[in-house]
């Protein structure tokens, strides 16, 4: 691959680059290779990993993670972080649960209100980051803590316990769970959340690569000042990205709540870093301006495969995080190696 010789031409931007190098230069290729390595590893070392039911297991884990990773990847390409993304999945699930079980709404109106509420929180995050010019890392960390406190405080004050239960008896549960938390392909039971994940990843990829807002996202993450100077509505783009992240969190919150027919007050806390990790493994730069939605999906897939693969292997769980850490490091290394080589070919 590195042998792909570049012909000396007048303008290097017009250079004829080989297909291989062009492919390797895509941000998601590294995570794809990482995913393949881990997939082959567990496929060979365990019995169940490669069966259809096994695949259903790890795509299940990857799906809710993947939906969030795609949203977080968009936000990171736009140059911002959202640390409240994890706890938002709990907040939105709890809100839907309380609206239905405590205040007597039926499922669908509650779902609509939950999405509206999530969009509002995302808007608040965005406007605070824009107005204060503080790092989004700090602003959303504050949102994270505020929401975590509200989740526990409100849940306990209203229900007297630390979870909202009984969603299964709410009118509209059956139709809502058909859309958000049912399973497909009977004996193997693939989760419908996998379809949501693929749809959202495809939509995000289309937006990023084929539309004007997609260009804007790369521009505001790469250099906000330059973007503003060429007429990109930087504030609007960033606020929209925060809202997208929150709305995706609501989707995941609803999916999980309907699946478990209950929501715990601690739901989602700590997951925000997994989303960021998946996005970074998938080729997003922490500095913004570079990355891909498909890559983030592969990142989520890696985490999901490692999670279920370790379960199938029966490895001593004391070591679980060591394995996860090594696997993630491995994925990032493969990613880096591939990109280095691809960029080396360019020069």
């Amino acid at each position: 691959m590195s042998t792909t010789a570049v012909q000396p031409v007048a303008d290097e931007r017009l250079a004829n680059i080989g297909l291989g190098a062009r492919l390797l230069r895509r941000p998601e290729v590294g995570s794809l290779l990482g995913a393949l390595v881990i997939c082959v590893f567990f496929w060979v070392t365990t019995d169940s990993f490669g069966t259809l039911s096994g695949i259903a297991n790890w795509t299940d884990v990857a799906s809710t993670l993947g939906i969030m990773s795609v949203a977080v990847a968009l936000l990171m390409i736009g140059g911002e972080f959202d640390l409240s993304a994890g706890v938002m999945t709990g907040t939105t699930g709890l809100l839907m649960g309380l609206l239905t079980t405590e205040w007597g709404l039926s499922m669908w109106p509650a779902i609509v209100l939950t999405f509206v509420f999530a969009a509002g929180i995302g808007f608040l995050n965005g406007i605070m980051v824009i107005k204060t010019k503080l790092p989004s890392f700090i602003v959303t960390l504050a949102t994270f803590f505020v929401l975590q406190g509200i989740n526990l405080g409100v849940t306990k004050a209203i229900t007297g316990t630390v979870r909202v239960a009984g969603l299964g008896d709410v009118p509209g549960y059956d139709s809502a769970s058909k859309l958000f938390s049912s399973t497909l392909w009977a004996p193997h039971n693939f989760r419908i959340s996998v379809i949501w994940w693929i749809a959202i990843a495809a939509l995000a990829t289309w937006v990023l690569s084929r539309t004007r807002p997609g260009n804007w996202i790369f521009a505001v993450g790469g250099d906000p000042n330059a973007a503003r100077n060429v007429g990109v509505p930087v504030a609007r783009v960033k606020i929209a990205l925060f809202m997208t992240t929150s709305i995706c969190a609501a989707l995941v919150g609803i999916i999980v709540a309907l699946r478990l027919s209950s929501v715990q007050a601690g739901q989602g806390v700590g997951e925000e870093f997994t989303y960021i990790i998946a996005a970074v493994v998938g080729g997003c730069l922490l500095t913004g301006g570079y990355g891909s939605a498909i890559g983030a999906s592969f990142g989520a897939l890696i985490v999901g495969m490692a999670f279920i693969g370790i379960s199938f292997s029966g490895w001593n769980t004391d070591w679980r995080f060591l394995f996860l850490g090594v696997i993630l490091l491995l994925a990032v290394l493969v990613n880096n190696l591939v990109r280095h080589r691809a960029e080396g070919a360019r020069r």
Partner: protein
Amino acid sequence: MRQLRYALLAVLMVLGLAAFAAACGGDDDGDDASSEGAPTTKDDVDLTQGQDVTIAMVTHGDGGSFWAVAKKGAEDGAKQMGVTLKYSESNNDPQKQAQMIDAAVTDKVDGLAVSAPNPDAIRDSVKKAVDAGIPVITLNSGAEDFADMGAMTHVGQTETIAGEGAGAKFKEAGAKKLLCVIHEQSNIGLNQRCDGAKTGFGGEVENLQVKGTDDISTTLTEIQSKLQSDNSIDAVLALNPDIAVAARDAVKGAGSSAKLATFDLSGDVVQAIQDGEIEFAVDQQQYLQGYLPVVFLTLNKTNANTVGGGQPVLTGPGFVTKDNAETVAQLAKDGTR
């Protein structure tokens, strides 16, 4: 050249991971796998399948000192029964626990033991196991729901009764205001213990939510500032041994004279009981909660036995006080109490 070194590093890591995984994966095939330095071949896996009984245990545990003892019980049980154990913990995440149970069902294990702190969340997954003909036993949490979920029996203590016992003991000791320290946000069982303690205590009980076992220093500060801000508190009930040790330091740090008791044991807690720093510990003997389900499930598989007669098998509450602490001390050091 740098690229070459990168590639070499990546390859080494794959090999290292494979060897390590194989070594940890099973005692029987560890040697030849690590000498090959490559992933275990298909034959190794097939050889161990079929002649073994495999039991999966999926708990909401957090790897803390409480669950380490339960896990040791399960491992000892598996060793003595000659079966393979696949133990996994979800760290209080019900979605992950459901997914781990799904994985165990896919893996076609011969028996499944699960803790059920949030029965709704894992009901569907447990049902899948029952439908697939896998016998299920609940452990630790889930005494009220095991039958409903289709489990053979439950191995644990009922939280409310244990809480009542602890509250009554404080009342005997003449305490007036009790602080109940809750260390996991979403574990219903902890709230049930505090509610039980309230019933048994009769006096004023206040619950305090703290950070938890993964951040002991913050937890310590939280308890200490609570004691400093309200010096009418003359009794503290911790619900976990790690939290109890933090609470002991917090009581000292706050200069409070509050009496301290805890749920569950660790080496440190037993030492503190011997030293008179902790009054008593409510012992649910979680070693049994790991050990017994493995034994029951193995017997169910090999000898078609069912245990419990539709009732839970109680492993507690027992009380560890200064009188019996010494006996327990040695056992706690070995990690079985």
